[in-house]
Protein backbone atom coordinates (compact mmCIF):
# COMPACT_ATOMS: atom_id res chain seq x y z
CA UNK A 1 0.00 0.00 0.00
CA UNK A 2 1.19 3.49 -0.76
CA UNK A 3 0.99 6.52 1.57
CA UNK A 4 -2.24 7.76 -0.02
CA UNK A 5 -3.92 4.47 0.83
CA UNK A 6 -2.55 4.46 4.39
CA UNK A 7 -4.12 7.90 4.94
CA UNK A 8 -7.45 7.57 3.18
CA UNK A 9 -8.47 4.01 4.06
CA UNK A 10 -8.42 4.59 7.86
CA UNK A 11 -10.32 7.84 7.42
CA UNK A 12 -12.97 6.12 5.33
CA UNK A 13 -13.20 3.26 7.82
CA UNK A 14 -13.63 5.79 10.62
CA UNK A 15 -16.41 7.43 8.65
CA UNK A 16 -18.00 4.02 8.11
CA UNK A 17 -17.88 3.17 11.82
CA UNK A 18 -19.10 6.63 12.81
CA UNK A 19 -22.01 6.53 10.39
CA UNK A 20 -22.98 3.02 11.45
CA UNK A 21 -22.83 4.01 15.13
CA UNK A 22 -24.89 7.14 14.51
CA UNK A 23 -27.46 5.08 12.63
CA UNK A 24 -27.64 2.61 15.52
CA UNK A 25 -28.26 5.56 17.86
CA UNK A 26 -31.04 6.81 15.57
CA UNK A 27 -29.16 9.97 14.56
CA UNK A 28 -29.86 9.06 10.92
CA UNK A 29 -32.80 7.28 9.37
CA UNK A 30 -32.06 3.59 8.75
CA UNK A 31 -32.18 4.08 5.00
CA UNK A 32 -29.75 7.00 4.79
CA UNK A 33 -27.49 5.49 7.50
CA UNK A 34 -27.16 2.18 5.64
CA UNK A 35 -26.62 3.97 2.33
CA UNK A 36 -23.85 6.20 3.68
CA UNK A 37 -22.20 3.32 5.58
CA UNK A 38 -22.10 1.19 2.43
CA UNK A 39 -20.76 4.16 0.51
CA UNK A 40 -17.80 4.70 2.92
CA UNK A 41 -17.10 0.96 3.00
CA UNK A 42 -17.11 0.72 -0.79
CA UNK A 43 -14.78 3.74 -0.99
CA UNK A 44 -12.35 2.13 1.48
CA UNK A 45 -12.38 -1.19 -0.41
CA UNK A 46 -11.90 0.51 -3.76
CA UNK A 47 -8.91 2.52 -2.54
CA UNK A 48 -7.32 -0.39 -0.61
CA UNK A 49 -7.53 -2.67 -3.68
CA UNK A 50 -7.07 -0.34 -6.64
CA UNK A 51 -6.53 -3.29 -9.00
CA UNK A 52 -10.31 -3.57 -9.08
CA UNK A 53 -9.97 -1.02 -11.90
CA UNK A 54 -10.11 2.76 -11.83
CA UNK A 55 -12.25 2.44 -8.73
CA UNK A 56 -10.84 5.49 -6.97
CA UNK A 57 -11.83 7.63 -9.94
CA UNK A 58 -15.28 6.11 -9.90
CA UNK A 59 -15.60 6.86 -6.19
CA UNK A 60 -14.49 10.44 -6.80
CA UNK A 61 -17.14 10.89 -9.48
CA UNK A 62 -19.74 9.32 -7.22
CA UNK A 63 -18.76 11.66 -4.40
CA UNK A 64 -19.21 14.68 -6.65
CA UNK A 65 -22.60 13.43 -7.81
CA UNK A 66 -23.69 12.61 -4.27
CA UNK A 67 -22.58 16.03 -3.05
CA UNK A 68 -24.55 17.70 -5.82
CA UNK A 69 -27.62 15.67 -4.88
CA UNK A 70 -27.02 16.46 -1.22
CA UNK A 71 -26.83 20.19 -1.90
CA UNK A 72 -30.01 20.01 -3.92
CA UNK A 73 -31.87 18.15 -1.18
CA UNK A 74 -30.61 20.68 1.37
CA UNK A 75 -31.73 23.52 -0.86
CA UNK A 76 -35.23 22.02 -1.10
CA UNK A 77 -35.41 21.48 2.64
CA UNK A 78 -34.18 25.00 3.36
CA UNK A 79 -36.76 26.41 1.00
CA UNK A 80 -39.50 24.40 2.68
CA UNK A 81 -38.25 25.57 6.06
CA UNK A 82 -38.36 29.20 4.88
CA UNK A 83 -41.92 28.72 3.64
CA UNK A 84 -42.98 27.19 6.93
CA UNK A 85 -41.32 30.01 8.87
CA UNK A 86 -43.19 32.56 6.78
CA UNK A 87 -46.46 30.75 7.49
CA UNK A 88 -45.81 30.84 11.22
CA UNK A 89 -44.80 34.52 11.16
CA UNK A 90 -47.91 35.36 9.13
CA UNK A 91 -50.22 33.43 11.45
CA UNK A 92 -48.84 35.34 14.44
CA UNK A 93 -49.20 38.67 12.62
CA UNK A 94 -52.78 37.99 11.50
CA UNK A 95 -53.69 36.79 14.95
CA UNK A 96 -52.64 40.04 16.64
CA UNK A 97 -53.36 43.06 14.43
CA UNK A 98 -52.57 46.40 16.08
CA UNK A 99 -55.43 48.79 15.54
CA UNK A 100 -54.82 52.47 14.72
CA UNK A 101 -54.00 54.75 17.62
CA UNK A 102 -55.60 58.16 17.70
CA UNK A 103 -53.27 61.13 18.05
CA UNK A 104 -56.04 63.31 19.38
Amino acid at each position, binding site marked *: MIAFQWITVPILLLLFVGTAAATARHRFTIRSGVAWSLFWLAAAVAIAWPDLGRSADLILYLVVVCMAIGFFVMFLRLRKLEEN*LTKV*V*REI*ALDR*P*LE*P*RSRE
Partner: protein
Amino acid sequence: MRFTSSNAPNDRRHAAAALPLLSPSVRSGVFIVIAAFNEEERIAETVDSLTGASLHVIVVDDGSSDETASAARECGATVLRHVVHRGERAALQSGVAHALMRGASYVITFDISGQHGIDVIPALLQPLIEGRAEVVLGTRSPTMEVRNPLLRRVLSPFRRFGCLRAFTRDAAEQFCANDDARLSSVEVPVRGHHHNHARFGGAIDSVLDRWFG
Protein backbone atom coordinates in the same frame (compact mmCIF):
# COMPACT_ATOMS: atom_id res chain seq x y z
CA MET B 1 -38.40 64.25 1.80
CA ARG B 2 -41.45 66.24 0.67
CA PHE B 3 -44.28 65.36 -1.65
CA THR B 4 -45.01 67.95 -4.26
CA SER B 5 -48.39 69.56 -3.89
CA SER B 6 -49.63 68.47 -7.31
CA ASN B 7 -48.96 64.75 -6.85
CA ALA B 8 -48.94 63.98 -3.20
CA PRO B 9 -50.71 66.50 -1.07
CA ASN B 10 -49.70 66.25 2.50
CA ASP B 11 -52.70 68.03 3.89
CA ARG B 12 -55.68 65.84 4.79
CA ARG B 13 -58.25 68.00 3.08
CA HIS B 14 -56.25 68.02 -0.10
CA ALA B 15 -55.69 64.29 0.19
CA ALA B 16 -59.41 63.56 0.32
CA ALA B 17 -60.01 65.86 -2.63
CA ALA B 18 -57.40 64.02 -4.66
CA LEU B 19 -59.67 61.02 -5.10
CA PRO B 20 -62.82 62.57 -6.57
CA LEU B 21 -63.35 59.68 -8.99
CA LEU B 22 -63.91 57.14 -6.27
CA SER B 23 -67.46 56.82 -5.07
CA PRO B 24 -67.88 56.26 -1.32
CA SER B 25 -69.00 52.67 -1.91
CA VAL B 26 -65.87 51.89 -3.93
CA ARG B 27 -63.65 53.76 -1.51
CA SER B 28 -64.94 51.79 1.47
CA GLY B 29 -63.86 48.55 -0.21
CA VAL B 30 -60.36 49.75 -1.08
CA PHE B 31 -57.57 48.63 1.20
CA ILE B 32 -54.01 49.88 0.89
CA VAL B 33 -51.24 47.51 1.98
CA ILE B 34 -47.73 48.77 2.69
CA ALA B 35 -44.72 46.64 3.58
CA ALA B 36 -42.28 48.50 5.82
CA PHE B 37 -38.89 47.58 7.18
CA ASN B 38 -37.18 50.13 9.43
CA GLU B 39 -39.15 53.02 7.95
CA GLU B 40 -39.79 55.00 11.12
CA GLU B 41 -38.44 58.18 9.55
CA ARG B 42 -40.62 58.36 6.48
CA ILE B 43 -43.67 56.17 6.98
CA ALA B 44 -45.78 58.91 8.55
CA GLU B 45 -45.93 61.04 5.44
CA THR B 46 -47.11 58.23 3.17
CA VAL B 47 -49.63 56.81 5.65
CA ASP B 48 -50.94 60.27 6.55
CA SER B 49 -51.75 61.05 2.95
CA LEU B 50 -53.63 57.75 2.56
CA THR B 51 -55.62 57.81 5.80
CA GLY B 52 -56.39 61.44 5.07
CA ALA B 53 -58.24 60.27 1.98
CA SER B 54 -60.38 57.95 4.13
CA LEU B 55 -58.73 54.81 2.83
CA HIS B 56 -58.13 51.71 4.91
CA VAL B 57 -54.40 51.39 5.37
CA ILE B 58 -52.63 48.23 6.54
CA VAL B 59 -48.94 48.50 7.28
CA VAL B 60 -46.97 45.29 7.66
CA ASP B 61 -43.97 45.92 9.86
CA ASP B 62 -41.59 43.31 8.48
CA GLY B 63 -39.42 42.70 11.52
CA SER B 64 -38.27 46.30 11.99
CA SER B 65 -35.94 47.14 14.85
CA ASP B 66 -37.14 50.75 15.06
CA GLU B 67 -40.53 52.32 15.86
CA THR B 68 -42.08 51.80 12.44
CA ALA B 69 -45.17 50.10 13.88
CA SER B 70 -45.87 52.88 16.39
CA ALA B 71 -45.38 55.59 13.78
CA ALA B 72 -47.81 53.87 11.42
CA ARG B 73 -50.43 53.37 14.14
CA GLU B 74 -50.18 57.03 15.12
CA CYS B 75 -51.09 57.94 11.55
CA GLY B 76 -54.20 55.79 11.55
CA ALA B 77 -52.97 52.57 9.99
CA THR B 78 -53.71 49.06 11.16
CA VAL B 79 -50.38 47.37 11.77
CA LEU B 80 -49.42 43.72 11.40
CA ARG B 81 -46.08 42.77 12.88
CA HIS B 82 -43.82 40.13 11.41
CA VAL B 83 -41.70 39.00 14.32
CA VAL B 84 -38.81 38.29 11.94
CA HIS B 85 -37.97 39.79 8.55
CA ARG B 86 -39.52 37.75 5.74
CA GLY B 87 -39.10 39.96 2.69
CA GLU B 88 -41.34 42.32 0.79
CA ARG B 89 -43.55 39.81 -0.99
CA ALA B 90 -44.23 37.83 2.18
CA ALA B 91 -45.07 41.05 4.03
CA LEU B 92 -47.43 42.19 1.29
CA GLN B 93 -49.13 38.78 1.26
CA SER B 94 -49.75 39.05 5.00
CA GLY B 95 -51.25 42.50 4.57
CA VAL B 96 -53.40 41.41 1.64
CA ALA B 97 -54.62 38.40 3.63
CA HIS B 98 -55.69 40.74 6.44
CA ALA B 99 -57.43 43.04 3.97
CA LEU B 100 -59.37 40.10 2.58
CA MET B 101 -60.38 39.05 6.09
CA ARG B 102 -61.79 42.55 6.55
CA GLY B 103 -63.86 42.29 3.38
CA ALA B 104 -61.75 44.20 0.87
CA SER B 105 -63.12 44.49 -2.67
CA TYR B 106 -59.90 45.94 -4.07
CA VAL B 107 -56.42 45.79 -2.62
CA ILE B 108 -53.59 48.11 -3.59
CA THR B 109 -50.02 47.39 -2.58
CA PHE B 110 -48.39 50.76 -2.13
CA ASP B 111 -44.81 51.91 -2.10
CA ILE B 112 -43.34 53.33 1.08
CA SER B 113 -40.57 55.18 -0.72
CA GLY B 114 -42.65 58.29 -1.28
CA GLN B 115 -42.29 58.04 -5.04
CA HIS B 116 -46.04 58.12 -5.60
CA GLY B 117 -48.83 60.30 -4.46
CA ILE B 118 -52.35 59.09 -3.85
CA ASP B 119 -53.42 60.50 -7.20
CA VAL B 120 -52.22 57.23 -8.79
CA ILE B 121 -54.96 55.29 -7.01
CA PRO B 122 -57.88 56.07 -9.38
CA ALA B 123 -55.70 55.14 -12.37
CA LEU B 124 -54.86 51.83 -10.74
CA LEU B 125 -58.46 51.05 -9.84
CA GLN B 126 -60.11 52.06 -13.09
CA PRO B 127 -59.23 48.90 -15.12
CA LEU B 128 -60.38 46.73 -12.21
CA ILE B 129 -63.68 48.55 -11.83
CA GLU B 130 -64.28 48.33 -15.59
CA GLY B 131 -63.46 44.60 -15.53
CA ARG B 132 -60.57 44.96 -17.97
CA ALA B 133 -58.06 43.19 -15.74
CA GLU B 134 -57.60 41.34 -12.49
CA VAL B 135 -54.29 43.00 -11.66
CA VAL B 136 -53.03 46.47 -12.50
CA LEU B 137 -49.33 47.20 -12.39
CA GLY B 138 -48.05 50.69 -11.91
CA THR B 139 -45.13 50.86 -14.29
CA ARG B 140 -42.56 53.48 -15.12
CA SER B 141 -42.14 52.37 -18.75
CA PRO B 142 -45.55 51.51 -20.25
CA THR B 143 -44.26 51.77 -23.80
CA MET B 144 -42.05 48.76 -23.19
CA GLU B 145 -44.88 46.24 -22.84
CA VAL B 146 -43.75 42.63 -22.47
CA ARG B 147 -46.39 40.05 -23.27
CA ASN B 148 -44.55 36.86 -22.31
CA PRO B 149 -45.55 36.17 -18.66
CA LEU B 150 -42.24 34.51 -17.78
CA LEU B 151 -40.16 37.29 -19.31
CA ARG B 152 -42.38 39.88 -17.66
CA ARG B 153 -41.79 38.22 -14.31
CA VAL B 154 -38.04 38.20 -14.79
CA LEU B 155 -37.93 41.79 -15.98
CA SER B 156 -40.49 43.13 -13.55
CA PRO B 157 -38.06 44.39 -10.89
CA PHE B 158 -36.39 46.58 -13.48
CA ARG B 159 -39.56 47.87 -15.06
CA ARG B 160 -41.80 48.68 -12.15
CA PHE B 161 -41.78 51.31 -9.54
CA GLY B 162 -41.48 49.39 -6.31
CA CYS B 163 -44.56 47.37 -5.55
CA LEU B 164 -47.39 49.50 -6.86
CA ARG B 165 -50.13 47.03 -7.81
CA ALA B 166 -53.88 46.79 -7.55
CA PHE B 167 -55.86 43.57 -7.25
CA THR B 168 -59.48 42.53 -7.41
CA ARG B 169 -60.59 40.43 -4.48
CA ASP B 170 -60.22 37.16 -6.43
CA ALA B 171 -56.79 38.15 -7.70
CA ALA B 172 -55.71 39.13 -4.21
CA GLU B 173 -56.65 35.66 -2.99
CA GLN B 174 -54.49 34.15 -5.71
CA PHE B 175 -51.64 36.53 -4.86
CA CYS B 176 -51.77 35.26 -1.28
CA ALA B 177 -51.67 31.67 -2.52
CA ASN B 178 -48.65 32.40 -4.76
CA ASP B 179 -50.85 31.53 -7.71
CA ASP B 180 -50.94 34.90 -9.43
CA ALA B 181 -48.63 34.29 -12.40
CA ARG B 182 -51.44 33.74 -14.89
CA LEU B 183 -53.76 36.54 -13.85
CA SER B 184 -54.75 38.99 -16.54
CA SER B 185 -52.99 42.26 -15.97
CA VAL B 186 -52.63 45.68 -17.48
CA GLU B 187 -49.93 48.23 -16.91
CA VAL B 188 -50.70 51.84 -16.27
CA PRO B 189 -48.14 54.62 -16.39
CA VAL B 190 -47.38 56.25 -13.10
CA ARG B 191 -45.20 59.23 -12.59
CA GLY B 192 -42.82 59.03 -9.70
CA HIS B 193 -40.93 61.56 -7.68
CA HIS B 194 -37.29 60.68 -7.66
CA HIS B 195 -35.76 60.76 -4.25
CA ASN B 196 -32.17 59.92 -3.64
CA HIS B 197 -33.05 57.15 -1.22
CA ALA B 198 -35.51 55.56 -3.61
CA ARG B 199 -33.69 55.83 -6.90
CA PHE B 200 -31.02 53.20 -6.36
CA GLY B 201 -31.57 51.64 -2.96
CA GLY B 202 -35.23 50.95 -3.66
CA ALA B 203 -34.52 49.25 -6.96
CA ILE B 204 -31.78 47.11 -5.46
CA ASP B 205 -33.99 46.13 -2.54
CA SER B 206 -36.76 45.23 -4.92
CA VAL B 207 -34.53 42.98 -7.02
CA LEU B 208 -32.98 41.26 -4.02
CA ASP B 209 -36.35 40.72 -2.38
CA ARG B 210 -37.90 39.30 -5.50
CA TRP B 211 -35.08 36.94 -6.39
CA PHE B 212 -33.72 35.98 -2.99
CA GLY B 213 -36.33 37.18 -0.51
